Structures are given as C-alpha cells and as structure tokens.
C-alpha cells in the first residue's frame, strides 16, 4: 500500500474526537504505516506443506535423531532426557503434556516479567505471598491457557474476573518488579512515580514489545510514541494500588493468627531470658552514655514527659535514640560466658523459627481505588516538574481515538487488556509468537523481542512472523499450538550453526537430575539453598548477622528445581549469576551468553559441584558407560573410552570423572 493511501485511510478512520490534539495527531499520523503498526498479513500456504517449512525452509541437514531428542527434551523441560528412544512426535506429545513443560516456560516468562521473590534495595525483604504468581504462571502454561486470557488476567484479573482467586493472583505481574521500601522521611510522590514507571515499562515491554521508557522524559526520538502517550498509559494505572488481598475466610484468618500466637508463645521464654541477660548492660550503656549527651538534651529528659514542648519532645526523641544501644554495642559489654549463653538462646529461637507457621493465604495483587490522583505530564520525568494533566488513553499511533476510555477509575486496566487482545491488534500476537520462536530457536524473528520499534531489529522474515501471528489468533491464542508448529518444523530440527548454551537454571537442574538428587516437588514458598560464607557476608543488615539465611529443615527441599529457589534481588547465587541469570530489575527478553573463567572455578570448586559430583559418581557406580548414559544419554565412543581409561590409570577418581562430565561442552550446550 502506498503511504499516501494509508494516510487518507487513517484520517477517514478518525472520529471527530475532541480529545485528540491535532498537533499530536500530526506527529504520529505519517508513522502508522510502519510495519509493526499495520495488521499482519497472512500468506497462503500450499496444501500438505508444513507452513514453517514453506516460509522458512531449513538451510542445513537435519540433526540425527538421538541428538534431536536431547535438544527437544532440554528445550521443553529444562532437564536432560532419561532415554533417547521413541518416535519424535510421540516424544514431543509426551513432553508437552509433562508438568516440566510449564516449569520451563514459567522460568522464561518470569524473566520477561522481571519476577523475583524480594523487594530489592537495601532491606530487600522477602515478599511472603509473591510466589503464588510464580505458581500461577507455571499452572497456566501447563494448562495451555489461551494467551488472550493469560494477558487479561495479568493486566486486569481483579477487574475482569472479580472474586476469582486465580485472576487476582495473576495481577502480581503488575508488582513483580523491584520496589524501594525504607524508613525515614520519604518523598511519597517520587515513590509512587517509581511504581508507575515500573508498571508502565513492564506492560509495554511484555505485551506490546514497545519500549515506552524513552517517552518518559520526551517524545520518543525514534518511534511515534509521544510523551503524552506515556503519561496517558500511566493514567490508566493511576487508580491502581498495591494490596495483599486475603484468599481465605475469616475463620481461616483467625486460625492462622492462633497458630502464629502459639509460635510466639514458644519463643517468648527465650526472648525473656535474652532480655534478662542484656538488661544490666543496656542500663550500663545508658549510664555511660548519658554524660556524653549535650547538656540541653540531658535537661530535656529531666522534664516530665507530659510537660515537654514540641521542640523538647523532638530533642527527647533524639536523646533516647542515642541512649538505646544497637545490638553490637550491647554485645560488646557482655562478658564471654553470658555472651555464649545468649548465643545459645538465640540459636534455640532460630530452630523454633524453622517451624514458623505460614501466614493466612493472600494474593500479592493490586486493587482499584475509587478516586485516582490526576496524572500530569512530567518534565524530564521529574514528579516535581508537573505539566499538563492527561486523561487515561491508549497510544495515539495505535489508537487514533486514544481508545475513548471512560473516566471511571474502575475498568481502565480492563479496557487496556481488552484492547490488547483484540484480534486485529498489530502487536500483541506478533510479540508473543516471536517470543515462542526465540525461546525455541535461540533468536527471534525480530531479534529485539521487547522492541518492535524503529531502534529494534526488522523482522528477518515478516511473512513468517505474520503467518504465525494470524495463526496464533485463529487458533484461539493457543501457545502449545504455535510451539508445536515450530518444534515440528525442519527449521527447528536442522543442525545448529552455533550450539546454544543451556541457561543457568537448566544447568543447575540438569546437574541435579543427573546426580539423582533432583526433587521434583512442585509449587509453594521459595526455598533457600546453601550459600557460600562469602555470599552470606554480603547480605546487608545493620542487625545481628546470625540466622540471615536459614536452610530448610527438610534437606531434600534444597534440591528443588531452580524456578522454586528463592530469587533474592541483591543476593545472587554464584553458579546462576556466572551463567547470566538476569538481575530481575527490568524485563529480560533473552539471556546473554558469556564465557569467562569464574564459570570454570564455580563448576569445579564450589561445594555444590563437589556434592553433585560425589552423588553422580555413586549413582554411576564407577562405570564409564553409566557416566555417559546418565549425563548424555549415550555410550562413550572408543576415543572417549580411551580417555577414561587413561584418566583412571593415572589415579583419577570417580568423583573427578563425574565433575569432568558436568563440565563438558556437550553437557551444558544443546546439540
């Protein structure tokens, strides 16, 4: 279509909407012709031909079957195959029906939505109910929930499906990002703006494949996204607040309180004993500190509490703060024997705390308030520099009437979600099929999965992208259908130019699977795994640094799949971090692959690897055939047998052989 024709068409579509500023319209009108803003066009596929083979023919010979099954199993489940037998399509069916399928997809989706289990920033507190969103994601992929439903639940489950616990939990998407929670004088407006920025970025990157963040400070330099568009999107969220919503009835809440009270009662005698030990030293501290206070502060303390002026109250508060010792100042005064007694009591408390009852079930979700604060365009994104007020609206380039959203604070997110899943939306389906393609092929058709804009890459094959997008919509937004189409194509099954490395999670999970220690229990609270003392030391606390990382009582919990391992924003596990686990601060559409020496050190010397090598060696019973069979699903070649023989004849141990197997390129790279 010629650009001028499109122009005419666009104008003819324009309603006489007074809300649209003609100047804004003039800025974006010409750009509606950009490929990603036009509806996908579906080419015809000849009968009897696999559509992908037609649109993206394989360039290389197919991989031999056993390697192919290994690739398929790792891709679909994130775990190595236990057998390399069977018909490809039958194995594919079996793997797609396996609960491991949702775990593997879940981890991918959690990368995209910047999910972690903690707030981030200095205190980095755990979010006690956030994990239900993680479980929701895994369940959704396993159930092959239609993507339009999946999207609508995450964006507006509370508004669209009121009273439905699963949909409420889904809105955890909106608040999965980092959040600054700290005491002292706070700039509430700045904090709120940070929440809005995070939500706006998450929505535009995840569902629209657009990076709106450039438009926070100015009209987008490369894309027809206006600064006003950015704040109109924020206005959609202006009535959205974060809230934990209870999922159980009053009786269950009461019994949870009762369980907690019982737990506190167990701790109380120990706490009292510690208090008793500390008491004289707290008093000693106070007595020694008092003379060092400035005289006017000492004098204030002598005045009757009731009779203090405002100024005196402030001074008294500051004086009291100085007179109350911090934990280390108390401990420094306690003699060794009492110190040991105190430490033993704390240790007893920590043991009891391992049985701390779970809080009553809540959804880590959002809530729509009845009155939204007005949204201003902010100069250079600064909440102190307010400019004109904007109403909630959709990006002008995609919605020439700005979506005509109602002014009611309720239902704005629902309107956004419904607009996104309109079958004619040019981005939603393209963005998701491109993610599926990238997940399976290693590289997106648009290689910048979160940026379909001008700065992003052009599609390497627009016909393919568009065919998949239209097929996705026609199939009822069926993720498994698209996934299966890709996996049955020759493009997927051909030999690799460059082998793909497993991501960090798959590396850890595969090692556990091969050692036989993997615990396949699904769902629930995130689990802590052992950390090195060096990592323990970088946990920030101003408090007493004992019991900062309690390990689960049931040790088998430490060998759960990585998607269930506590993802703490400031404390990254070295094995995962060294293999490029994302930092969860913003959406990660694709993990990079770096190669460096720290990987080797961790893969050889960490306690985890030593433990796993030991278990693997025991499992293989020292048999070279078994080592190969368990790790790679095949027997060793003659040359490999020779290597093994040579290694053992020089005194090499079975554990070291097991360790070497884990470090092989063909163990941590896909065929």
């Amino acid at each position: 279509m010629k650009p001028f024709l499109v122009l005419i068409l666009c104008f003819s579509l324009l309603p006489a909407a007074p809300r649209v500023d003609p100047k804004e319209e003039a800025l974006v009108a010409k750009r509606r012709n950009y490929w990603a803003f036009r509806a996908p066009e579906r080419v015809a596929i000849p009968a009897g031909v696999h559509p992908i083979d037609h649109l993206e023919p394989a360039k290389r010979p197919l991989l031999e079957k056993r390697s192919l099954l290994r690739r398929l199993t790792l891709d679909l489940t994130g775990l190595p195959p236990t057998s390399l037998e069977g018909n490809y399509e039958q194995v594919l069916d079996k793997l797609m029906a396996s609960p491991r399928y949702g775990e593997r997809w879940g981890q991918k989706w959690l990368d995209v939505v910047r999910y972690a289990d903690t707030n981030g920033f200095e205190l980095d507190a755990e979010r006690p109910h956030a994990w239900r969103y993680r479980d929701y994601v895994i369940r959704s992929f396993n159930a092959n929930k239609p993507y339009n439903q999946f999207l609508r639940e995450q964006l507006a489950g509370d508004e669209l499906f009121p009273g439905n616990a699963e949909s409420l939990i889904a809105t955890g998407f909106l608040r999965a990002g980092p959040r600054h929670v700290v005491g002292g004088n706070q700039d509430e407006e700045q904090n709120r703006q940070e929440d809005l920025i995070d939500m706006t970025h998450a929505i535009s990157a995840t569902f629209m494949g657009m990076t709106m963040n450039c438009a926070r400070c100015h009209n987008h330099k490369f894309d027809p996204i206006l600064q006003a568009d950015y704040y109109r999107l924020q206005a959609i969220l202006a009535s959205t607040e974060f809230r934990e919503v209870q999922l159980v009835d009053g009786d269950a809440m009461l019994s949870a309180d009762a369980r907690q009270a019982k737990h506190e009662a167990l701790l109380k005698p120990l706490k009292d004993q510690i208090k008793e030990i500390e008491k004289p030293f707290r008093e000693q501290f106070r007595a020694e500190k008092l003379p060092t206070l400035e005289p006017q502060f000492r004098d204030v303390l002598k005045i009757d509490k009731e009779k203090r002026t405002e100024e005196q109250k402030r001074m008294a508060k500051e004086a009291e703060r100085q007179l109350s010792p911090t934990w280390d100042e108390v401990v420094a005064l306690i003699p060794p024997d009492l110190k040991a007694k105190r430490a033993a009591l704390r240790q007893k408390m920590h043991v009891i705390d391992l049985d701390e009852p779970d809080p009553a079930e809540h959804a880590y979700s959002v809530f729509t308030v009845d009155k939204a604060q007005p949204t201003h365009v902010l100069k250079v994104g600064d909440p102190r520099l307010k400019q004109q007020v904007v109403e909630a609206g959709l990006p002008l380039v995609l919605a020439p009437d700005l979506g005509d959203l109602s002014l009611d604070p309720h239902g704005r997110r629902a309107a956004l979600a419904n607009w996104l899943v309109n079958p004619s939306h040019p981005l939603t389906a393209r963005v998701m099929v491109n993610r599926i393609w990238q997940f399976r092929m290693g590289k997106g058709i648009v290689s910048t999965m979160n940026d379909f804009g001008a700065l992003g890459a052009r599609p390497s094959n627009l016909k393919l992208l568009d065919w998949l997008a239209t097929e996705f919509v026609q199939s009822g937004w069926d993720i498994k259908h698209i996934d299966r189409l890709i996996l049955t194509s020759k493009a997927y099954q051909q030999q690799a130019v460059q082998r793909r490395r497993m991501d960090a999670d798959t590396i850890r999970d595969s090692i556990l699977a091969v050692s036989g220690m993997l615990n396949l229990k699904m769902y629930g609270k995130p689990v802590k795994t052992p950390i090195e003392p060096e990592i323990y030391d970088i946990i920030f606390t101003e408090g007493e640094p004992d019991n900062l990382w309690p390990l689960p009582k049931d040790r088998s919990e430490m060998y759960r799949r990585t998607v269930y391992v506590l993802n703490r924003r400031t404390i990254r596990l070295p094995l995962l971090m060294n293999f490029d686990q994302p930092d969860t601060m913003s959406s990660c559409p694709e993990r990079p692959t770096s190669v460096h020496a720290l990987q080797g050190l961790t893969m050889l010397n960490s306690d985890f690897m030593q433990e796993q090598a030991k278990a693997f060696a025991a499992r293989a019973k020292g048999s070279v055939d078994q080592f190969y069979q368990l790790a790679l699903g095949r027997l060793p070649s003659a040359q490999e047998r020779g290597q093994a023989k040579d290694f053992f004849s020089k005194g090499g141990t079975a554990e070291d052989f097991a360790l070497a197997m884990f470090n092989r390129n063909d163990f941590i790279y896909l065929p």
Partner: protein
Amino acid sequence: MTSFTSRRNVLRTAANGFGAIAAEWLLQREATAAIAPKAKSVIFLFMVGAPSSMDLFDPKPALKKYEGQPLPASFGKVGGQFTDGSNPLLASPWEFKRYGKSGLPVSGLMPHLAECVDDICFVKSFYTESVVHAPAMYQVHTGRILMGYPSMGSWVTYGLGSATDNLPAYVVMPQPEGTPEGGTPCWNSAFLPAVNQGTLLRPGPSPILHLRPPAGVSAERQRRTIDLIQQMNKIDTAPEDNEMSARIASYELAFKMQSAAPEAVDLTKEPEHIRKMYGLDEKRTQDFGTRCLLARRMVERGVRFVQIYSGGGPVSMQWDAHSHLKANHEKMCGLTDQPVAALLKDLKQRGLLDTTLVIWGSEFGRLPTSESGNGRDHNMHGYTMWFAGGGVKGGQSLGETDEFGLRAVGERYHMRDFHATILQLLGLDQHKLWYLHNGRHEKLTDFGGTPIAKVFS
C-alpha cells in the same frame, strides 16, 4: 560484517580479560576510545554512610559564628532523612589548617592526607538526588537512584576491557564487618555481560570465591581433572567454533588464576617500610591499610577498576554520624587517613599515580544543622569528593558551597558530571559508551554529563 571474523578478533585480543570472551551481541559496542586516555585504572575509595564535608575539607567559619541558631529563614527549611530542618547549626569540632604549596585547607581529622593536598583536586559542589543511603549510593555508583543499572566499574571494564588475564578486571573490597547499604547493585553489571560484574576480593589464601580446590584436592589432582575436561571438549570442538574454543581457554585461565590470585594478595613479600607506611603494623589501620595496599598491587597487575569500601554492616562501623559526630569521624578517619595517604604516596613513588585515577567519595554529605545535638543528618544539596592521579590537576579546589556548607552554589556538579569526568580521564567518550537494552541506548551518564574541565591537567 561477518560476525564470525569479528568474534575471532575479539577472541584473539582477549579484549575483556579474565577469560572473558565476547559473544556476537557484545559487539554492539562502538569503538569508545575516542579521547586520549590519561588514566588506565581507577581506585574508587568509597566512604559508606557519608562523611561530613564541612568537618574535613570545606571549612565554614559561619557555623561557629551562628552556632546554636537555626538556619537563616532565607535558606528555607532543609531537612535530611530524619530531621526536618528546624535544628540549630552545629559548628565543626575541628580546626582547619592550610597545607602544601597549594595551601588547601584540611581539618585536623586527616593529618596524613593533608600531606598529599598538592596531588589532590577537591570538588566541593557535588549534589545528588536522594537523601536515603541506598538510592544515593546507586546514583553515585550507577548514575540512577534506582537499582538495575550497571556500575561505573562495569561500564569502564566493558569499555576498556582488562589488562590482565589472570585476575578479574574489576575487583571490590567491602568492609569486613559488612556490606554497604546499597549492597551488590553497587558493583553489579546489571544488563551488561556478567563478566563485567565486580568480583569480590578478600585478603588471605582464597581471595576469590571458589578459587581454591576443596580441601583434600591437590593442585595436581585438579590439573588432571582439567586435563580430562579439555580432552573431552576438544573432541567435539571445531576450530572455527569460537565459543567452544573460548570455553577451553577459560578453564586454562581458571587454573592460572589459582596461582596468580593468591600471589597478587600475598603481602608478606612487601618490605617492612611499605607495610608500615600503610599502617599494617597497627590494629587501627591494619584492615583498611591492607585493602589499600592490595589495591596498589591489583593496579600493578593490570586490574582496571578497584572499589574499596570504608564502612558497612553495623551502624557503628559507618560514617553515618547522626549523633556523636566527633567520636564517629575520629574513629573512621583514624581507620582510613594513614592508609589513603600511603596509597597516594606509594603510587606516586612507583610512577603509577600518573596512570591511576584515585577517587574518594560518598553517597552524599552531611547537614550544617545538628541532629541529637552533636551529630548531622544527610545532605544531598552540596558535598565534597576528590580526585587524584591519572590526568588530574592536583593542588586545586573547584566549586563551593554556601556560607554554611548546605548547598552547592555557583558551578554545581551533578553525579552525571562526576561520571562524565571519570570516563573522559579514561579516554572513554560518554556518548559512545552505550549498550542497547530494551530498546534504549543506555549510558552511564544517561542524557550526558559535563566533564569538569578544570579537573584535567
């Protein structure tokens, strides 16, 4: 461009050091060394919790004159994180003297550093955007008050690579008592490649995490395991497969590092007079002196960026003097003054100061008003940091604060100016050092800062 050729080039030059092998996407980086570099490496001395500028380098006689009175109304009510601005002014408990040829003032808290003022460029008019420790730390380390952006050291090593293959290009030495409030995001690589993360380095036999084989595994035994891995991996590595070749190389480097890193942190080889100079013979200065001496040894061995924290963990081990400013700053200066001065003098006597940029700074400064009668709350409106060494014109003081030391006045410098200055000293063009992340050309200085021209020699 054929990506394979480029990748091989990157591989051959081992541009990122530490066994880091760039993958294709890493080549999104433009050529960055557009400016003649003055410094090759950086030592960033970070004072956790915020020292008080007006008690160290920025004397304010008006504080004495108006002590006990509130700030004049014309200044507005300026609070910190805990005070609301109504507290009275607090005079500095210390006297200032002028030192060196330059005659720059330093308070009695830092007698050793005072001997180095002719090598130092003080910038007294920095300001920042948060009055809370962690966000302000993120801003000075990463350019944003939010988490999730690469730290300065990550950008620098991303831009310049490393001059050593046996050691990490970017090392971090926190206070042994605990981590700074900002925590790991202060040295993380965020969306830059993992190899650009700061690596924790500690004194002792195992300076790097997982460096040593486990107890009972000899070097010989580990060598045998690595040999087996290499044999196994060579079978299926085609010569043109750079990533696989890189993996093979990375295991050799890991092995080499096992001897190189302990050697690099072995201070027993240092002569007595050097150990004494850094204060290793005294309990008070031993820890920070050790870390400063390690910093020099790292720079000598080609490490690009060294970050040392003074302070961390319990409040009593930070510069965060909300009360008892006198006792707190006497303690913290006592721990650091001699080692910092020794580092400058030692680098100078070895001819390393010309190519090593030393930066001393913090997340913000402290208010001229009092907290708890004898302390000071946080001040983001004006504070001092200093530069020395590589490309810096020493013996000068730039910028100023108002008569009470509350706000930077005249030529004020934002954190992006701080970062632009550092990048320029290293020969990096702040506008070309970018990384495409989620559709945006992310840079350390974001929209761009102005290098502080007068800093340059």
